[in-house]
């Protein structure tokens, strides 16, 4: 919950607002009576600044109320607004009710509670009163409205599985080749009397080092690409939303995968090498 009092949001489509649920913004020179708040996108597109006078009306061309821009607010990083070119205007409740002929009606109440237990009690009491109200937890609403992002998230995970499979095979292939290239060195070590176990360990340590170095480069690259992706999409969709985030969990997964594959491939290749005789490795 976390919000005291009431708030009504009305989305404006860029250029031509829909009738009944919209407000037309026109620059005027008359004195304002009340204040409104507008979002930064509308301020930028309409060239509005604090103190400007505008007319707000319910339908295009109808007489409305003259108001003054009292505040310009940041847009919230709300994923549900992505790809929508909507503007947001905040009016005093009674003014909006009068403007759209809504009477003393509201779309919803937001109720702040001190804690989770308080939320449960409030929901029970509202349910008991039951004058046609239906209380929802903010969390439940968030779950309901975040279906789009759950789908996108599942899609991203599926793509990640495919790319990880391709990347894993690539890594495995490269490490096998790299170890294979060391066959002459391994043969020389074996001829000098170095034990099979020592050779395998040396190769595994080398593979692990390659994996660690690769992981460091990969994480750095990932971090840089994340910054680029965020900068690009924040500009495209004009939102402060973060589109990509490198979390500790993701880094841990990537590094672990890289180490497991690297060490696994190194061990596999080393075992194959030490099983062959040194002279065969030298091609003799």
């Amino acid at each position, binding site marked *: 919950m976390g919000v005291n009092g009431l708030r009504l949001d009305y989305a404006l489509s860029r250029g*031509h607002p*829909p009738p009944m649920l919209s407000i037309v913004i026109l620059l005027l020179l008359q004195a304002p009576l009340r204040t409104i708040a507008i979002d930064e996108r509308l301020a930028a597109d309409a060239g509005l600044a604090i103190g400007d006078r505008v007319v707000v009306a319910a339908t295009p061309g109808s007489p409305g109320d003259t108001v003054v821009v009292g505040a310009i607010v940041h847009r919230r990083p709300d994923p549900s607004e992505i*790809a929508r070119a909507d503007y947001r205007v905040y009016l005093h409740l009674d003014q909006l009710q009068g403007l759209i002929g809504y009477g003393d009606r509201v779309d919803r109440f937001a109720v702040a509670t001190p804690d989770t237990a308080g939320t449960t009690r409030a929901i029970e009491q509202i349910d008991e009163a039951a*004058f046609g109200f239906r209380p929802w937890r903010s969390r439940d609403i968030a779950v309901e409205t975040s279906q789009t992002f759950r*789908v996108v998230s599942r899609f991203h995970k599926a793509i990640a599985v495919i790319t990880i499979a391709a990347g894993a095979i690539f890594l495995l292939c490269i490490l096998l080749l790299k170890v294979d290239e060391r066959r002459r060195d391994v043969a020389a070590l074996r001829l000098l009397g170095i034990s099979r176990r020592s050779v395998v360990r040396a190769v595994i340590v080398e593979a692990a080092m390659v994996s660690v170095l690769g992981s460091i480069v990969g994480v750095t690259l990932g971090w840089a690409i994340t910054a680029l992706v965020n900068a690009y999409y924040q500009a495209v969709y004009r939102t402060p939303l973060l589109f990509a985030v490198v979390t500790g969990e993701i880094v841990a997964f990537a590094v672990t995968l890289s180490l497991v594959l690297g060490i696994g491939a190194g061990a596999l290749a080393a075992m194959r090498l030490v099983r062959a005789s040194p002279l065969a490795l030298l091609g003799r």
Partner: protein
Amino acid sequence: MRWTLAVASLARHRTRSALAVAGVAIAAALLLDMTMLSSGMRESFRALLLRRGFQIRLAPRGTLPFDTEATIPGAADIMGRLRTITGVSVVSPVLGAAIHIPLADRTITSFAVGNDARVQGDYELVTGRDADSAGDMVANAEFLRATQRGLGDTLRVATGYDPQLRAFSGERRLVIRGEARFFYLSAGQSAVAIPLATLQAMTGAAPQDRVSLFMVKVGNDSLVEPVRRSIQRSESLVDAISTADALSRVDARLRYFRQLGAILATVSLAIGFALVTTLVSVSVNERIGEIAVMRAIGVSRQHVIQQIVVEGAVIGLSGAVLGLALGQVTARWLNSILAHFPGLPAAIDFFLFQGRAVWTALALFLVISIVAGLYPAWRAGSLPIARALREEAVG
């Protein structure tokens, strides 16, 4: 001969060759999927819009059809004016609303379309007959399942609920006359179609004769744009949206998926290139002595280069063929995930197999594989024969 030698060379290191082909196959599958994603959404949506031949939609100004709850007043007047425009053959008004069905133990909420059954373009009848008179409706399978009713049953249908009176408003008793399949609904969404006048009366839209949108059919495709412009000039309350406009607006909203597709397609090409070039380079390094001997006994430089290039092509071709099959499977999987996208018609295929685009992508993949083998092939062809033989013998 060159192909035989190339295959024999790859078969010498089966594990690494198999891994390389598997990696290339996954990269090719990803490329295939992203190619299908890039063009699939658009083509699928276009086919859906044109399914019943309506080329123009009129939505309340500043909105897309059913994007908001906004409506257009004076539907009959607008229809009258639209019919006078040269080229307009059919005009279908549509009103959308939520309806409530009070049952004994629960209340079902569904989507309702108010339209004229004679010219509607929202559904196709599966069984029964259309909703021709004021007390009729047709419903989809999801609605019949949710209400556990069938054709011929009568239902109480309301469009609102008054919390103070604890009573439904806009209530009517409607008979289910037919079962229909709706085109523009998301997966699992229940819906009914009701005569426009009935739904207008139930929702309180009748006095102002409000509708959510008009669909307009133009007899000749070449007249679509002139008709659209003419409507836009004469009707101030609506946006006239042609199929091309709708596609460009959907393109803008789904731009993210196209960009993701382009990025991942590029990445998959890069992975394929890196895999092929790495494997072929290592293979050449290992066979320097062998290649030098071939050159020494008279095998031409061109032959050596071609053989190495063919090795890369074999990996690329094998991977592309496997990737084609794998890509179909992964496309179905990814499509089943995106099918749950809220608000999008279930009939939209995100991954649409379009022969030309797919074959072009796979041909590009094959070309990349051949290009990937060029550098190691050039190195093999440019070997100093005597030095390579000496180094091979000494060391």
